[in-house]
């Protein structure tokens, strides 16, 4: 229960030696401030990196062909080869544990100027071919219409999904592009949808500036035969992508007479491993932030405890007088603990407040959280609650030793200390 008298007593004793109280409290303040800033900063870095990976399935990998590095089955080394449609069929048939697979065609590295035209509007954009599964691997939010579907792929339809920048170049704002025709490299396609991808983690350029068509259409119209540039795959939940990747690599090597020990012929980029490494890195950052923050906070708490010990020593006679006048040992103990708790709590909650303010200022200063996006330099409510709980526990802990010492002071001994 709130006891005004008790708080008056506490404030009287705390403000009696202001400089010392402030310096003592500063240790706790700095500890909490550091904890908030470090965890908030570490969290911001994590959010920043993960935001850049947003939209990409974390359990995915991309596989493409390279040149062989081993002579095998009568083939010389340094041989070029390509993934093809048959590989995809066999992989879909035999590989266990995959969730989605999409062949991808990039259509070469050079793009003709103003290759995309609609009426008098034109622009230069990259074209790529894929199947419907690609949107599960590299997700895009659809602004208009739909994504490429299985029928588009099956029937080699001349449909496309355009990126937002393509839409902005060819259409007026707000105009519905679905069903409209655009010319890409001299061939007319109907727009099936507009995908709002981001430039964060993407392959073969910015998806906002890309035109996606069914890979079968691309193979036919661009005369690629059954060639596929890359395979994108995701694993089922609870199945490691590396297992699926291994199975795909084995099939590809077998289909194309590549030595099983050839490490160069099949190249893979396993995002699951990358994400795991990133997660591990940020776990390390978090642990480091907590160690440094809590270490600083503990140093502050030990400071509070030390000063409270000194205070009790200095106030021995006063405690003796209080005891003589009727203060029970418990009330003396509670008085000292309340003082310790109050100093710690005030300093700690100021630390949290200034920590949050500091993060906010960094957020505004760096501008990474601007533009309507969620602020990066923030702490979770749970972290603030945990910090508050730690402060309360440590504040009580800091006062425990001095309070026991105060409680044991005998009035007769204290009064004789003149």
């Amino acid at each position: 229960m709130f006891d005004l008298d008790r708080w008056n007593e506490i404030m009287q004793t705390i403000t009696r030696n202001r400089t010392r109280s402030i310096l003592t409290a500063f240790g706790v303040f700095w500890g909490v401030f550091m904890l908030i800033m470090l965890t908030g900063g570490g969290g911001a870095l994590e959010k920043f990196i993960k935001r850049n990976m947003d939209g990409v399935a974390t359990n995915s990998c991309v596989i493409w062909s390279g040149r062989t590095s081993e002579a095998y089955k009568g083939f010389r080394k340094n041989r070029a080869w390509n993934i093809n449609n048959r590989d995809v069929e066999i992989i879909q048939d035999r590989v266990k544990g995959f969730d989605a697979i999409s062949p991808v065609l990039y259509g070469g590295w050079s793009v003709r100027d103003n290759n995309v035209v609609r009426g008098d509007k034109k622009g230069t954009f990259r074209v790529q071919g894929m199947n419907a599964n690609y949107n599960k691997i590299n997700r895009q939010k659809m602004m208009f219409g739909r994504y490429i579907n299985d029928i588009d792929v099956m029937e080699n339809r001349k449909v496309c999904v355009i990126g937002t920048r393509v839409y902005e170049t060819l259409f007026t704002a707000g105009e519905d592009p679905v069903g409209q025709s655009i010319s890409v490299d001299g061939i007319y396609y109907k727009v099936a949808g507009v995908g709002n991808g981001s430039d964060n983690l993407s392959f073969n350029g910015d998806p906002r500036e890309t035109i996606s068509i069914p890979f079968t259409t691309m193979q036919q119209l661009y005369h690629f035969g059954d060639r596929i540039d890359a395979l994108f795959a995701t694993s089922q939940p609870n199945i490691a992508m590396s297992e699926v990747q291994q199975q795909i690599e084995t099939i590809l090597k077998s289909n194309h007479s590549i030595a099983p020990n050839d490490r160069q012929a099949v190249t893979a980029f396993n995002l699951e491993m990358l994400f795991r490494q990133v997660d591990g890195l940020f776990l390390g950052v978090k642990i480091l932030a907590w160690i440094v923050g809590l270490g600083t906070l503990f140093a502050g708490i030990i400071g509070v405890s030390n000063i409270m010990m000194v205070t009790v020593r200095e106030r021995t006679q006063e405690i003796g007088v209080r005891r003589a006048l009727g203060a029970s040992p418990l009330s003396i103990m509670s008085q000292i603990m309340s003082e310790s708790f109050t100093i710690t709590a005030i300093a700690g909650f100021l630390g949290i407040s200034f920590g949050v303010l500091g993060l906010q200022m960094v957020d505004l200063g760096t501008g990474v959280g601007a533009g309507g996006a969620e602020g990066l330099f923030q702490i979770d409510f749970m972290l603030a609650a945990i910090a508050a709980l730690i402060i309360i526990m440590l504040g009580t802990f800091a006062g425990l030793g001095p309070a026991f010492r105060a409680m044991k002071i005998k009035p007769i001994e204290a009064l004789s200390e003149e």
Partner: protein
Amino acid sequence: MIRLENINKTYYTGTPLHVLKGIDLHIEKGEFVSIMGASGSGKSTLLNILGILDTYDTGKYYLNGTFIDNLTETRSSSYRNKLIGFVFQSFNLISFKNALENVALPLYYQKVGRRTRNKIALEYLDKLGLKEWAHHMPAELSGGQKQRVAIARALITKPHMILADEPTGALDSKTSLEVIKILRDINREGMTMIIVTHESGIANKTDKIIHLSDGVIDRIEKNTHKKKSSPDSEIK
């Protein structure tokens, strides 16, 4: 009111020091008693035992019929708060509390509300002529004023007795006289008063003088000067 039977107290600091040796004492309600003796005679120890600030080794101590022995610290604190008022030689006011707060402190431990205890404290300060000084800090008060604040603090819980350890020890003779007059006036209202002093002039103002010597009561002297000397007469 107070009955001590064969009280013994030994301090064990290096060589055992037998400070009180079989003290038998009876003090009636309303008496004004002084305890005199040379330094080390055990007078302060006796006062501390009477004030439940210290314990005794053997014997019996009855206060208002209650056997005072083996009390918990909490029970001791409660008895001190309700039954006994203390006046110390060095006043022992809490330096960061003003006169009013110092006087009101014993009532704080009785959980009396702030407004009520400040009102009562002000009445006691007024009674001791310090109403105007209620909000002054101890450092702003003279020695006599500090001791009057301490007396007000001792009185505020309406205790059964007041124990004063050298209450005039830190005061000049004029102020000592004022303080002893106050204590005498309080005694006349029926309060039992026990003071430890080494000043015979102060002791002569009391009804009964207990002479302690080497831990035993040497003699108890009924004060024959009581009726002749007024508390205003000079202390010798």
